[in-house]
């Protein structure tokens, strides 16, 4: 359980990065390129407005880890 948890902890960010970076092919046509460009600009602008706090998912992960530790048979 501990080994699996450690592996998941290490692997999750790497997998997330790899999947997001290589998932979609780049658009070729003008319309698709422009749409993707607008989407990129909009999302990057939205990032600036975000408060950047990732507290809820972090607390949730901590709670999941805590419960997993309590449920681990000893």
């Amino acid at each position, binding site marked *: 359980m*501990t080994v699996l*948890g*450690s592996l*998941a*902890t*290490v692997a*999750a*960010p*790497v997998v*997330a*990065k*790899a999947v*997001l*970076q290589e998932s*979609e092919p*780049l*658009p070729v046509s*003008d319309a698709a*390129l*422009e749409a*993707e*460009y*607008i989407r*990129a*600009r*909009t*999302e*990057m*602008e*939205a*990032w600036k407005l975000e408060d950047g706090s*990732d507290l809820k*998912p*972090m*607390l949730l*992960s*901590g*709670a*999941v*880890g*805590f*419960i*997993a*530790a*309590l449920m*681990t048979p*000893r």
Partner: protein
Amino acid sequence: MSLNAAANSANAATAAAVSDTAAQLVTQGLLQNAGQPMQAGEPEVALTLNSPNLSPEQRAKIRKEMYSTIYEWRRQKAERAEKRWTKRGLCAAGGYLFGLLLARADKESAAQPRSAPDVLQEIAEPVREELKRLYWRQERQRERSEAGATRHNWRHRRRWRSTGQRLFAGQARHLSRLLPPPREGEL
């Protein structure tokens, strides 16, 4: 008017003109970009390939700009995801470790040998409470019956008692009349 005063008024007029122009520019920029987000380090007006009078060079340049923006977006997105999942993983690991430590501390405290007085106290406390409760209940019943119990009530009261109490009710009544009642702290 002195020379200094003339220079000051000229400076003020220039500053006012510059600020007006800046305000106009800002307004124009905002109007041009209405509905489209602006990006730091990029041209203020969003790029477009829709314009019919674009030369092939301009079109190629704009496409290149768009591709670089998209690349940057994807890179930042992946970075953010990586950061986010790293944080979540660390939190999960922290929670797991905390849970393990807590469980271990609990196990250790449960394994600690307890002293005999502590154990006796633990056993004696509920017994003492129950005895007190029973005694005061009996006292209340006695007071009630002395205060005006009819035969009818007395008959029903017997039913409330447990078997043991019923068997020794007579003796207990006699004894309670003979002996002074114990104080609350004595039980």
